[in-house]
C-alpha cells in the first residue's frame, strides 16, 4: 500500500517546523565512486508536508518513508533508475541476476553479490536476508500481510510463534545463495522482493521499530540524524560498494525538512532556499500562477499510477444497493474534484490507473468522466433504489485537498437525496480507523498508489474478497464478488506473468476492470499527477523520479 498521509495537528507541526537544520555543511568524505561530472558535494534540502510513518525499512508503508529508505536499503531487486514507466523495470539490486524460478513457480533462487558492507563497515552475510524477513514479520511490516506472510512457506508459523525461523527460506553464506519457497505461485514476487523490507540487516538488529535510529543499510547513503516529525539527514555511506544500475549519488548530504505548511515550503523552493518540493504534496493553487510564470523551467507535472476514489461499503445501507452506488457515479462532478486538487487530477472512472497494464481504453459505463455529472438522473436513481433519506457518514482526512474532496462529496450526497454528514479525522489515524471492520464505515475518501506496476497490486489488496481483514482492511468497500475473486486470483498468481510480460494478460485485466466499473463498486474520480518543482540549484537533467517510491535521492545533483 502506498498512502500519502499527513500529520494531524497542523499547527503543532508548523510550530516545530521552524527548527532549521544546519543545511550547509558538507561532509569531507566523498565517495570515490561519485560520478565525474557535476558537483559531487554540497547539501540538498527536500521539503515534506508529511512525515514518514517510520524510517525503519521493516515497518514503513508510506511513500515518504519509501523515498527516504530507497537509497539507504537496497533489496535483492530494485527498480531501474530511469524516469517514467521505464523506472518500474525490475533490475537486480543486491542479487547478482534476476531470480531463477522453478517450473511450478513456487521456488525462487538467487545469489547475493560478494563484498557488500553495511554503512557501519560490517560485512553483509547472505543469512542477513533471513534476519530482515523475520524482523519484518515480528515488527510487523504492515504490508507483510499481503507481500510476505501469506506468500512464503513457514512465514505464518513464524508469525504465530510455532517455529523459530521461516522454514521456506534457506541461505548459504559461503555461496551467497538464497532459496525461497512460496506457498503458491505469485506473479509479482520479484516486485515483492524489491520492497525495502527484504533488504538485509545485521544479525542482532532489535526486533522493534527503529524509526528514530534506523538500522544500517547497504545503499549509497545512510541516515546521520533523525528528529522525528521534524527532519532527517542522509549522508554518503563510506562503505558503499558500487552496484551496476544504482548511482553512487552526487550530494554529500540530503536534508529532509518536514512542515505541514506546504505554502511556505513551495515558496522556499521558489525562492531557492530549499531545493526540492515533495511530489506527494499538493502545491497550493494560490502559488501555481507564480510558479508557472517565474519558475516554469523547474516545474512540471509527473505521471503516477494513482487512483483516487470514494469507497462505498457494499455491506451497509445505502450502498448495498447497486442503484445507489450507480447514482453516486452518475452524478459525481469529477472536473470539480480535479479543481479541488489544483488541477493535478485527470478525471476517470476505471479502477486501474492509465499507466497500469489493463487500464481500459473504452468509454465509462455511466457517462463521460469529464462531464459535471448528471444530478437529475442521480436523484432519480436514489429514489428508485429506495434509499432516499438514508443517513450516510462520510469519512475523510484532514489534509488538503482530501478534506475538500469530502466536503464536496458530502454536499453532493445530500443533493442527490441522502442524509450525509462528515466525519473528518487525523491523517495518521484515518486508514487504520476506516480499515477496522467493526466500524463498518459506509463511505469515504480513498486513494492508492502502486506498490509495483502490476494490476494485482490493486485488485489483490483493494477488491479481492479474501483481502477483507478485521483490522488494517484495505478493501474498504468490502467487495466480495466471485468473478473478481477468481479472475484476480488467476491473473495474479500466474508465475509466468511477472511484471515484464504482463502485456500478454493485459486484455484480461482490461475486461476485469470494465466489469468492476460496470458494477459500480468504487466511485473513482481521477488519477493523480504530481508536481516536480525544484530550486534553480538542482540539475534537473540528472533527477530521476520513479513512479513507485518517488525521487531517487542519489540522483539529486547541484548544477
Amino acid at each position, binding site marked *: 500500500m502506498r498512502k500519502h498521509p499527513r500529520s494531524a495537528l497542523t*499547527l503543532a507541526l508548523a510550530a516545530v517546523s521552524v527548527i532549521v537544520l544546519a543545511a550547509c555543511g558538507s561532509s569531507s568524505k566523498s565517495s570515490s565512486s561519485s560520478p565525474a561530472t557535476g558537483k559531487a558535494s554540497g547539501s540538498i534540502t527536500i521539503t515534506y508536508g508529511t512525515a514518514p510513518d517510520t524510517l525503519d525499512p521493516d515497518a514503513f508503508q508510506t511513500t515518504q518513508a519509501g523515498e527516504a529508505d530507497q537509497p539507504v536499503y537496497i533489496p535483492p531487486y530494485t527498480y531501474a533508475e530511469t524516469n517514467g514507466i521505464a523506472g518500474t523495470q525490475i533490475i537486480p539490486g543486491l542479487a547478482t541476476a534476476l531470480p531463477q524460478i522453478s517450473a511450478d513457480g513456487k521456488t525462487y533462487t538467487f545469489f547475493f553479490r560478494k563484498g557488500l558492507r553495511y554503512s557501519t563497515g560490517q560485512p553483509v552475510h547472505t543469512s542477513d536476508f533471513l534476519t530482515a524477513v523475520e524482523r519484518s514479520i515480528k515488527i510487523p511490516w504492515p504490508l507483510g500481510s499481503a507481500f510476505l506472510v501469506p506468500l512464503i512457506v513457514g512465514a505464518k508459523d513464524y508469525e504465530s510463534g510455532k517455529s523459530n525461523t521461516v522454514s521456506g527460506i534457506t541461505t548459504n553464506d559461503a555461496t551467497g545463495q538464497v532459496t525461497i519457497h512460496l506457498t503458491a505461485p505469485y506473479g509479482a514476487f520479484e516486485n515483492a522482493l524489491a520492497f525495502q523490507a527484504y533488504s538485509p540487516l545485521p544479525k542482532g538488529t532489535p526486533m522493534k521499530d527503529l524509526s528514530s535510529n534506523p538500522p544500517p543499510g547497504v545503499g549509497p547513503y545512510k541516515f546521520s540524524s533523525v528528529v522525528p516529525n521534524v527532519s532527517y539527514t542522509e549522508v554518503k555511506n563510506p562503505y558503499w560498494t558500487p552496484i551496476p544500475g544504482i548511482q553512487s549519488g552526487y550530494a554529500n548530504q540530503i536534508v529532509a525538512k518536514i512542515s505541514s505548511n506546504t505554502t511556505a515550503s513551495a515558496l522556499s523552493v521558489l525562492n531557492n532556499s530549499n531545493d526540492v518540493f515533495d511530489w506527494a504534496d499538493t502545491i497550493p*493553487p*494560490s502559488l501555481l*500562477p507564480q510558479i508557472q510564470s517565474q519558475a516554469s523551467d523547474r516545474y512540471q507535472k509527473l505521471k503516477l499510477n494513482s487512483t483516487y476514489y470514494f469507497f462505498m461499503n457494499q455491506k451497509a445501507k445505502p450502498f448495498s444497493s447497486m442503484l445507489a452506488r450507480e447514482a453516486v457515479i452518475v452524478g459525481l462532478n469529477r472536473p470539480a474534484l480535479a*479543481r479541488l486538487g489544483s488541477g493535478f487530477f485527470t478525471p476517470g472512472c476505471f479502477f486501474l490507473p492509465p499507466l497500469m497494464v489493463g487500464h481500459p481504453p473504452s468509454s465509462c459505463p455511466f457517462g463521460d468522466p469529464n462531464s459535471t455529472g448528471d444530478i437529475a438522473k442521480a436523484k432519480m436513481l436514489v429514489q428508485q433504489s429506495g434509499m432516499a433519506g438514508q443517513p450516510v457518514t462520510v469519512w475523510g482526512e484532514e489534509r488538503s485537498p482530501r478534506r475538500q474532496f469530502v*466536503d464536496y462529496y458530502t454536499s453532493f450526497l445530500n443533493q442527490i437525496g441522502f442524509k450525509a454528514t462528515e466525519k*473528518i479525522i487525523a491523517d495518521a489515524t484515518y486508514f487504520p480507523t476506516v480499515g477496522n471492520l467493526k466500524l463498518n464505515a459506509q463511505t469515504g475518501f480513498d486513494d492508492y498508489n502502486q506498490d509495483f506496476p502490476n494490476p494485482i497490486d490493486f485488485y489483490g489488496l483493494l477488491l479481492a474478497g479474501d483481502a477483507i481483514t478485521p483490522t488494517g482492511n484495505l478493501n474498504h468497500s468490502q467487495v466480495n464478488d466471485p468473478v473478481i475473486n477468481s479472475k484476480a486470483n488467476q491473473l495474479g498468481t500466474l508465475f509466468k506473468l511477472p511484471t515484464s510480460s504482463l502485456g500478454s494478460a493485459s486484455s484480461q485485466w482490461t475486461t476485469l476492470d470494465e466489469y468492476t466499473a460496470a458494477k459500480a463498486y468504487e466511485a473513482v474520480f481521477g488519477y493523480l499527477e504530481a508536481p516536480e518543482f525544484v530550486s534553480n540549484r538542482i540539475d534537473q537533467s540528472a533527477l530521476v523520479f520513479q513512479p513507485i517510491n518517488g525521487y531517487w535521492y542519489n540522483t539529486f545533483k547541484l548544477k
Partner: protein
Amino acid sequence: MAVGGSTGTELSAGVPAELLVEAAELPAGIGPYRLAWRRLSRNHGALFFGVIFLVIVVLCLLAPVYSSDIAHTGPNDNHITEQIKIGGKLTYVVSTIGLPIGPTWHSKFFLGADPNGRDIAVRLLYGGRNSLEVGAVATLITIVLAAIIGIAAGYFRGWTDGLLMRALDVIWAFPVYILGVALGVSLAISGIGPLRGNSLMVPAFVIGVVFVPYVAKPIRGQVLGLREREFIDAARVQGLSHVRIMASEIFPNIASTIIVFIPLMLANSILLEAGLSYLGAGVQPPNPSWGTMIADGVANIPAAIHLVLVPGIMLVIAVLSINVFGDGVRDALDPRAKVRIAR
C-alpha cells in the same frame, strides 16, 4: 463588591472615605445593579462596543434569511464548476487550478468564494452563528459548573474542598489548547452520550469544561471569605439548610463576580472555539465557523487573502467588542469605580 443582603455596618467597614461620600450622594433606595447600570450607561465606549456585538449577533441570526433571499445558496452548497457574470464576463467560481473568485460585491458571492465554491458571506454568517452558539453554551457550562463547584468547595471546605480543588487542579495542569485539542479530537469521533461527534455541543462541552477552574477558583476564594461573615452565621442559627444558605445568602453575594466573568468567558470561549476549529478539534466540517474558515484559507493566502481576512476580521471585532463591553460591565459593578452618579 456588591453586598446585597448585608447590613449598613458591613458596608462602611473598611470602605474608603471617598466612596462613602459618593454613597451619601446617591438617591435613597438605589440597588447595586441599578447603580451599575447607571455607571455602564455613562461608559460610552463600552456601550458602543456592546452595540457592535449586538449587531454581529443579529446579523448572524439572520444568516438563513441572507442565505435564502439574497445569496440563494446554502452554507455548504458547492459551486465549483459553475460560472457567474462579473462585469458582464462569465467567470468560473473556482478556476481550473483551484483558485476561488474574490469578492464580487453583488448578492451572489458578495465576499467571494472558498476553494469548494461556497459563498463566503453565507458561511461567514452561519459560521458566526456557530461560533457564538458554541461560545454561549460553553460560557453557560463554565459558569454553572464553576459556580456550583466554587460555592460548594468554599462553603463546605474540608474534604469536599480538597476533592473538588484537586479535580480542578488536574484540568488546570493542562494548557487549555492541549486539553481542548485532546478532548475535541477524541470526542469528535465518538461524541458524548446522545450527542454525535459533529454536533456543535461537543466543542461547547469541551470548551465549557476546560475553563471551569479559571472561574471556580476565584469564586471559591470569595466564598471562603463570605462563609465567615455574620449574616451566614445568622442564617445557620435560623436553621437554614446548607443548600438554602448557598442559594439565598452566598450566591447573591457572588452574583456580580459571575456577571463580570460572563463576557470574559464568552470572549475566551469564542477564541478557543476558533483555535480548536482551526486545528480540526472544534466545529466539524462542513459546518462553518470562523476558525474553520481561517484554516481553510491558510493555504491560499498568497492569492486569495480574503479567505482568512474576512473571518479573521469578524473574529477580532466580535472578541474585541465583547472584551471592551465586559470591561465596562466590570467597572460598573465595581463599588470602588470612580464613576460620578448624577441624581
